[in-house]
């Protein structure tokens, strides 16, 4: 019996201690008609050896490609120490640190990570994670709705926000009647279109969501946007790649007063791509908004002997205390990812994180230079980018990508399904993991592919 220690003697003795003879007797309260042990669609057990072999075969089907995909999930070097430590049983198999005295390890890590994220975003406080970047943005919007004094439930969101994030906002906000006003982007720069924004801002709204960088890799100019929204009495939410914040003005320093909430995806900090998750949603805000924050928060306090220690705090915001009136329904969050992320950031250090950001930026610019040297390949937008950019191709991106794959390259994301208005658009990303040879290889392959006619 996999993972069940009981010997037949154990079972017999345990039953005897209750004056029973059969485990079935323990299920006597269940209406007999409900018992149904048929499991036709569940295969018979494998042992670990068989399972691992099957898994290795299946995992191998992912192939081994040189990958220039980004679009919300980024390939970065993760120090070997990160996951060797994060998967230590004491971190891996612990529950949420409700018994603080027996969970000081996890709690201190949470506190450290909160400190790192607050500092990166330039805001006062961070929570101890939300699910992923997209759902964290939805929580930020709901938080803004709760904080906002007016009765508008309308939020301005750029059409240059990641399409999946927009989809998640729609799913999570619709039941609470929060409306999303999508603001077009400027076709030349790829930034929020100021005219569209002005138009949308003429009706009351709760908050403006600024993606930095946006889905196109483009950097917005958040100072003016922030001041504009604040003047309209709205809150400002920065949806930021936290790695970019190693180089960029943090949301807390946008405009005169700074953004009110920052949130997004901390996957670039030590979390493997893993086909999409588990990732690491973060949310930071100003001190005064603390009581409306969703999710767990770790805090420092003193113990009975006056020594410092850590505990989950401000739980009155949460579902297990406030129930229907909680700031969110979230309970289980992404704890282990926080642990990995804290270790990752500590291993890279301030300088290392900055270098990763700068080198991803530099690699992307270099890639753009190489690729736009190919006839027919141009940049779609002229605004500065962080580590991603949109290219205009002379042929359908889908076909090009397919042929690049034949050459061992995943060349980026075809934008057509999300933005048909952009034509043959391709989103490319080159992080610090790419060498000059990799970039050259991509350029050579693309040149080759484009020479042949589309099929």
């Amino acid at each position: 019996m996999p993972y069940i220690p009981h010997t037949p003697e154990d079972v017999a003795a345990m039953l005897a201690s209750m004056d029973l003879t059969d485990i079935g007797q323990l299920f006597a309260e269940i209406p007999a008609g409900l018992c149904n042990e048929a499991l036709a669609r569940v295969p018979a057990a494998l042992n670990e050896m068989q399972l691992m072999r099957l898994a290795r075969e299946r995992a191998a089907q992912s192939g081994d490609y040189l990958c220039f995909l980004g679009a919300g999930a980024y390939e970065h070097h993760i120090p070997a120490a990160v996951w060797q430590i994060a998967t230590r049983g004491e971190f891996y198999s612990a529950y949420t640190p409700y018994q603080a005295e027996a969970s000081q390890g996890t709690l201190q890590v949470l506190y450290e990570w909160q400190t790192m994220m607050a500092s990166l975003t330039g805001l006062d406080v961070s929570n101890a994670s939300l699910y992923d970047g997209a759902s964290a943005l939805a929580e930020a919007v709901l938080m803004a709705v709760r904080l906002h004094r007016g009765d508008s439930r309308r939020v301005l969101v750029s059409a240059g926000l990641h399409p999946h994030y927009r989809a998640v906002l729609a799913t999570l906000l619709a039941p609470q009647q929060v409306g999303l006003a999508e603001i077009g982007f400027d076709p030349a720069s790829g930034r929020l279109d100021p005219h569209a924004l002005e138009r949308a801002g003429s009706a009351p709204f709760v908050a403006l969501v600024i993606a930095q960088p946006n889905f196109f890799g483009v950097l917005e100019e958040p100072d003016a946007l922030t001041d504009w929204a604040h003047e309209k009495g709205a809150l400002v939410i920065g949806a930021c790649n936290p790695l970019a914040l190693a180089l960029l003005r943090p949301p807390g320093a946008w405009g005169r007063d700074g953004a009110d909430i920052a949130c997004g995806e901390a996957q670039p900090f030590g979390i493997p791509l893993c086909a999409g998750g588990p990732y690491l949603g973060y949310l930071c805000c100003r001190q005064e908004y603390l009581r409306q924050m969703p999710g767990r928060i770790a805090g420092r306090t003193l113990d009975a002997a006056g020594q410092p220690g850590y505990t989950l705090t401000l739980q009155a915001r949460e579902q297990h205390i406030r129930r229907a009136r909680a700031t969110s329904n979230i309970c289980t969050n992404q704890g282990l990812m926080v642990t990995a992320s804290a270790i990752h950031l500590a291993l890279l250090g301030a300088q290392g994180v900055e270098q990763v950001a700068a080198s991803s930026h530099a690699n992307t610019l270099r890639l753009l230079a190489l690729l736009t040297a190919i006839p027919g390949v141009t940049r779609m937008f002229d605004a500065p980018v962080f580590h991603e950019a949109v290219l205009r191709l002379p042929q359908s991106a889908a076909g090009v990508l397919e042929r690049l794959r034949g050459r061992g390259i995943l060349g980026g994301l075809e934008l057509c399904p999300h933005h048909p208005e952009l034509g043959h658009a391709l989103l490319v990303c080159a992080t610090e993991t790419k060498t000059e040879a990799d970039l050259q290889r991509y350029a050579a392959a693309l040149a080759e592919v484009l020479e042949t006619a589309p099929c």
Partner: protein
Amino acid sequence: MLIFERSRPGRRNAAQQPGAADAGDLPAALRRASRPLLPEVSELDAVRHYTTLSQRNFSVDTQFYPLGSCTMKYNPRAANALAQLPGFADRHPLAPAATAQGLLACLWELQEILADVTGMAAICLTPMAGAQGEFAGIAMMRAYHLARGDHARRDIIVPDAAHGTNPASVGMCGYVAREIPTGADGDVDLAALRAACGPQTAGLMLTNPSTLGVFERNIEAIAGIVHAAGGLLYYDGANLNAILGKVKPGDMGFDVVHLNLHKTFSTPHGGGGPGAGAVGASARLAPFLPLPQVAGEAGGYRWLSEAERPRSIGRLSAFMGNVGVLLRAWAYTRLLGRDGMRRVAEHATLNANYLLHALQRAGFDAAYPGRHAGHEFVLTLKRLKEETDVSAMDVCKRLLDKGFYAPTAYFPLLVPECLLIEPTETESRETLDAFVAAMREILAEAHDEPERVKGAPYTMPVRRLDEVRAAREPDLAWRPPAQKA
């Protein structure tokens, strides 16, 4: 000591740094003025810091962790190895479908297995924890009613014993949570249910066995009442471990379920997450399931397109939920196999009842003495508290000194001074006996030397923490000494 306190300006871990690169082209107006507060430590210091921090945790791998409602069973190490295979761990979420057959095969099998054990028509794996599964389920119920033009339904009925996420999820879905009481025997108060039901009823959320650890005997009647009122039944699968492979929520009449794969299906809790809250639906609700989902066909596997599921409530996450968790759950289902499912429920239930009986013999009071336990049970220490002023919390803290993590305390809210105890099937009889011995010792100590119990713990890295202070004077991020002042 905090990692920041170990930090020294200019200390570098060169092996982890890609080297200087130029970002000078970025417009000055966009650039950061000062460096963020990230540690500057050597690799050894970081490794030593986090390794020794880990030792300051209790965990399943190191201690018995009888935390009720959380199903702290053994997390097979194979599942961890498997999820870390490069073909899975290094796979980009947007990598082309042509390279995804291996991954999709795993996810599709998991969908099939979960559909079978829950008796549902279809499963979507994307919700990232139980609470998101709840959101998805209620949102599907809402979409169903609206799709039928039934706009009047606003209430979701929730028993008072329900987990906090239930009413909270109801709120997230724009519905109103309507609480109904539990009878003295632990079952739902049917009269109250009847009274609560009507055309405004969107549905009922139920955990079965309930969070009180008892199986809701009137489940068929309940289903009848709710369905008759036009409402739908939502199954909170947090307690599926008690009936896995023996009873299917679909057979009880549930229309929607969520599962906590990090409970029943043994993925690690990771000190708070990540989890996975797969959601299942009966045939009539299946079209509303969130996306992405995996379709399995003769030619292979593929993602279902949005066009094929126009009535889906939509996306819940940027990509495909917590794939790494799903792979671990898949591993576990394959390791258990068909017969293993039922055995989980049987031995989890055996362990719970054995422990309940032994603790009763040791002098503790069951909250529902006449009832069989499911995979967990509730004790009430009301009498102890009255006799000795030792509270459930004190007993919890003292258990830590005995080398056991503490049971869930003060939940469910309706039982005074309660402990919710869940041993899980992966613990041996010897471990349960040792726990009983510790509880017996604490009981004796509570009578002989109550202050000792009330001052616990004594052997943890810290003494009892001041939670009130933590909330009154929130210290949520470290600041360098100068800044702090």
